[in-house]
């Protein structure tokens, strides 16, 4: 038995036994268990003995052995007492508690929203089972000092990659209809009764059949493996199916594209979820299979970088390694040709899940992507708001603790240990935090629809609510928050000296006041930063919306050109134009193949006649009739507009009159417009190389795209009214009778182009849509900064209420001695004013750095001005002064005798 003595049974189990066991049985039970333990140590080893000891401790639990003390131990009435006291305290200071809890709840709710949104943004494209193995192939093209980075690549890339590299298990290409249809595609369906429905569809892609197996877009009808195997087949989304066929079975129905091509519906897929980087309503496989009716020959395979290309790698493949091998592929298939043109191309692999948030700036993107920067900003805001809310809690509860000092003193006299007091206040903190979390859930649930509306997205779509990590994180934040926020007040409260407190000699420690001031100052810094951020975002957005674009975007009505056409289209177009101009509210009409508000997709090289190949740069192509410059009010800075009868002639030897914008002139290397006028330049167009253009006119720069982008170089080509319809018809209309004008235009359109959907929009709306994301960011930023301000304001209010209430007597005495209320306001607000000023100075540099960084992502932006440094501190100052003034006036207007008599 002596050998076993070196070991001991597990302490906690032993303690537990001692805790629950009655005095009557403890001798027997504990003694026997000990004895058995030492016996077993010798017989079967310490570990086993320890284990059995624990088992035995629990087996010894019975009604007989468990003491009353353990069942109704003193701590239970004590806990009950804590809750009662806590509850009474909450009720006694209703305003105070409300501020405390609602401040926390608002902060938590704001945080939840941001977390939901961030998770939504990060959920993009993760619903595909192979999402971690799918890569998008991007194509970077270099020529001289110019580079173009494209989200798309040559049609030959995908097949070649699969053929050359065994680790590429599959590829899929997708090509947006704008490449083969231009603008929009009109789909029509005639039902059995002969009535025809026509809808324009922009989100149409032509894809390889493998597109549906590489990705996992769920199908409602049809098997994704073979629905697109027939080139005459088409698959549509549920919404499109409902639009065309109502409740009928869509399978086997015929849909006609632009009145010319018949397709059979073979499948229906669920609407593409919001969190997909590629969105489509209709898919065909016709054009990729048939090579545009034979128009596309092998010659194009490596010259036509317009195809979204996705590859799937096998499990063991290393993407970085593969990426490094891609240069050999380019060399093998296109090396010679590229060298001939003095060009160089690189292929890159971009993980599918990176596309939405981590894309570099690429051309040929069909969707605007989110930005990691925004996500990071929002996360920081969420953290800041939470910190503000917790600081409030800490501040309010420590300052209030003075009121509870007597309670603490009494508890201590009655024998409460410091640990018990800490437990009590931590418990209270948990309870308050719990109330806040419940309230914040209510806030989130109630306001989620508005939030979704603001974002124009359903953010719950990407969030799996059954995700355990989400809830664990939530609980973690809750526990951590309650603990951190509760710890300091708990220690402050429990550390009071009984004698001082009970004698009533208690005025809060100097270090406590300093800490509280630091915390408030910190809140101020955060608030100032957030407010300054809001100011800048709004300034930038309004700047972008109101900046002179180089043309007048107001009163421009745009109509999409008819898609279902025949040989009479051009003569009808001429009629259309003259008919429209007869209406007095329509001042001007122009037909173009591009309109401002989005990137021009057609482009080719341009260089001066006397320059070498490496001076080539890409220039946007813009076909227009004679009226474009007048209709849009674009400035003609030199030379002339095109003349009547001038037209782009498809003859290589001819010299073509062209108009360039100033940006193109600068990029050509001309010093001035006068130097450039009537000069010649080489330009590329279509599959033919080296056309000669003569610069007959120069337009001022105008914003083809949003102000995020720099001016684009543009080359204008003339088109004859009688032989050109373009993609868009733009009408300059007067401000009067807009509805009548539109219905007039629609009538004319329907009369001349039956079987086409009449689509119209105003240019300013169209253009401003580019700012939707920025406006949204501004709104979200503004919303959350306001929330932060509200929370900080609540805290300030609570704190000053308390501060003043501590100084009621002081105020009374001052008043008796002849102090005025304004004088007292100055006196009491001095500290806060100092804090605001200090906070502003700390916030200033941070604001400058962040704002400067953010504004750099815009080619045209507001200068960093004084407003963003001055307005937020002033707002904060006004709020804090107002709060203190209100409190002081309230307290100061009471008759001093009343407050002094209280003693």
């Amino acid at each position, binding site marked *: 038995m002596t050998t076993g*003595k070196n070991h001991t049974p597990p302490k906690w189990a032993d303690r537990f036994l001692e805790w629950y066991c009655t005095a009557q049985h*403890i*001798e*027997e039970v504990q*003694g*026997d268990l*000990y*004895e058995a333990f030492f016996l077993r140590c010798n017989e079967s080893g310490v570990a086993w003995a320890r284990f059995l000891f624990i*088992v035995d401790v629990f087996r010894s639990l019975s009604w007989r052995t468990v003491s009353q003390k353990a069942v109704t131990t003193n701590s239970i009435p004590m806990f009950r007492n804590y809750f009662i006291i806590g509850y009474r305290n909450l009720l006694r200071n209703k305003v105070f508690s409300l501020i405390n809890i609602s401040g926390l709840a608002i902060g938590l709710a704001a945080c939840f929203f941001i977390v939901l949104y961030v998770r939504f943004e990060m959920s993009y494209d993760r619903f595909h089972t192979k999402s971690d193995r799918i890569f998008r192939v991007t194509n970077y093209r270099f020529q001289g000092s110019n580079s173009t980075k494209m989200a798309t690549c040559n049609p030959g890339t995908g097949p070649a990659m699969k053929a050359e590299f065994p680790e590429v298990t599959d590829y899929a290409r997708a090509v947006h209809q704008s490449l083969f249809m231009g603008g929009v595609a009109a789909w029509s369906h005639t039902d059995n009764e002969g009535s025809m429905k026509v809808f324009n569809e922009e989100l149409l892609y032509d894809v390889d059949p493998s597109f549906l197996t590489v990705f996992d877009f769920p199908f409602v009808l049809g098997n994704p493996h073979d629905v697109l195997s027939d080139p005459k087949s088409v698959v549509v989304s549920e919404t499109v199916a409902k639009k065309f066929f109502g409740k009928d079975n869509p399978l086997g129905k015929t849909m006609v594209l632009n009145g010319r091509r018949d397709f059979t519906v073979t499948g229906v897929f669920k609407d593409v979820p919001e969190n997909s980087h590629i969105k489509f309503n209709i898919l065909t496989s016709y054009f990729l299979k048939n090579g545009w009716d034979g128009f596309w020959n092998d010659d194009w395979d490596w010259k036509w970088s317009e195809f979204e290309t996705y590859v799937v790698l096998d499990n063991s493949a290393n993407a970085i390694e593969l990426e490094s091998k891609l240069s050999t592929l380019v060399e093998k298939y296109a090396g010679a040709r590229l060298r001939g043109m003095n060009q160089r191309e690189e292929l890159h692999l971009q993980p599918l899940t990176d596309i939405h948030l981590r894309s570099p700036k690429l051309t040929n993107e069909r969707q605007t992507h989110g930005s990691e920067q925004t996500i990071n900003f929002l996360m920081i805001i969420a953290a800041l708001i939470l910190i503000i809310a917790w600081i409030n809690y800490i501040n309010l509860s420590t300052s209030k603790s003075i009121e509870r000092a007597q309670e603490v003193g009494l508890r201590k006299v009655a024998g409460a240990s410091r640990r018990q007091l800490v437990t009590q206040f931590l418990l209270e903190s948990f309870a308050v935090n719990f109330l806040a979390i419940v309230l914040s859930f209510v806030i989130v649930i109630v306001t989620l629809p508005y939030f979704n509306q603001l974002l124009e997205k359903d953010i719950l779509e990407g969030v799996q609510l059954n995700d355990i990590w989400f809830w664990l994180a939530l609980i973690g934040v809750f526990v951590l928050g309650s603990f951190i926020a509760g710890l300091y007040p708990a220690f402050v409260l429990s550390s009071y000296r009984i004698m001082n407190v009970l004698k009533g000699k208690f005025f809060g420690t100097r270090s406590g006041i300093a800490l509280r001031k630091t915390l408030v100052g910190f809140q101020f810094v955060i608030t100032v930063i957030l407010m300054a951020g809001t100011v800048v975002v709004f300034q930038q957005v309004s700047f972008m919306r109101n900046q002179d674009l180089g043309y007048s975007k107001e009163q421009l009505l745009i109509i999409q050109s008819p898609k279902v056409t025949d040989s009479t289209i051009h003569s009808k177009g001429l009629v259309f134009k003259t008919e429209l101009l007869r209406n007095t509210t329509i001042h001007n009409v122009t037909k173009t193949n591009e309109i401002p508000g989005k990137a021009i997709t057609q482009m080719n090289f341009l260089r001066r006649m006397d320059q070498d190949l490496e001076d080539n740069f890409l220039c946007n192509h813009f076909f227009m009739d004679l009226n474009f410059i007048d209709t849009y009010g674009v400035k003609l800075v030199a030379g002339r507009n095109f003349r009547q009868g001038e037209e782009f002639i498809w003859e290589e030897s001819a010299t073509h009159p062209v108009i360039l914008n100033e940006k193109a002139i600068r990029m050509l290397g001309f010093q001035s417009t006068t130097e450039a006028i009537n000069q010649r330049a080489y330009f590329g167009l279509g599959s033919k190389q080296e056309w000669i253009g003569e610069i007959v006119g120069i337009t001022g720069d105008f914003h083809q795209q949003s102000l995020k982008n720099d001016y684009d170089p543009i080359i204008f080509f003339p088109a004859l009214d009688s032989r050109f319809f373009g993609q868009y018809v733009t009408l300059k209309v007067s401000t009067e009778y807009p509805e009548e004008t539109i219905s007039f235009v629609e009538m004319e359109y329907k009369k001349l182009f039956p079987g086409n959907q009449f689509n119209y929009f105003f240019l300013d709306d169209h253009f401003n849509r580019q700012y939707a994301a920025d406006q949204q960011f501004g709104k979200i930023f503004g919303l959350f900064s306001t929330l932060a301000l509200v929370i900080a304001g609540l805290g300030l209010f609570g704190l000053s209420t308390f501060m003043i209430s501590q100084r009621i007597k002081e105020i009374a005495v001052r008043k008796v001695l002849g102090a005025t209320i304004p004088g007292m306001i100055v006196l009491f607000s001095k500290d806060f004013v100092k804090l605001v000023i200090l906070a502003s100075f700390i916030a200033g540099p941070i604001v400058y750095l962040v704002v400067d960084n953010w504004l750099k992502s815009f080619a045209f932006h507001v200068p960093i001005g004084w407003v963003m440094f001055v307005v937020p501190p002033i707002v904060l100052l006004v709020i804090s002064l107002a709060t203190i003034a209100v409190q002081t006036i309230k307290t100061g207007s009471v008759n001093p005798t009343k407050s002094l008599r209280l003693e």
Partner: protein
Amino acid sequence: MNYRLGNLEETVLLITMYMEEAYGVSVAEEYKRQTGAGISVPAIHTVLRRLEDKGLVKSKMGESSPERGGRRKRIYVPTAHGFNVINQIKSDRLHMWSKIPQMKLNKG
């Protein structure tokens, strides 16, 4: 006379009859030695307390020892009533045994 006892109770009661110091651990050890089946100390405690409730044993506090963590033993000794009950059980059994024909026993 009510002497309905469970198998375990009967065995434990028997053990207290002849053991010098019958308490939790010693009874558990003896039980194991006699039946070959292990039993936990808390189980023995439960049985002993039940026997005490029925007045078949009585207990007194014994010596403490270091390996018991300084705790004293609770030593159980049978009461006269306990002795009578076990005796009654024994004679009842014997009576029943005597009824078994010899032949059957041999085959056993």
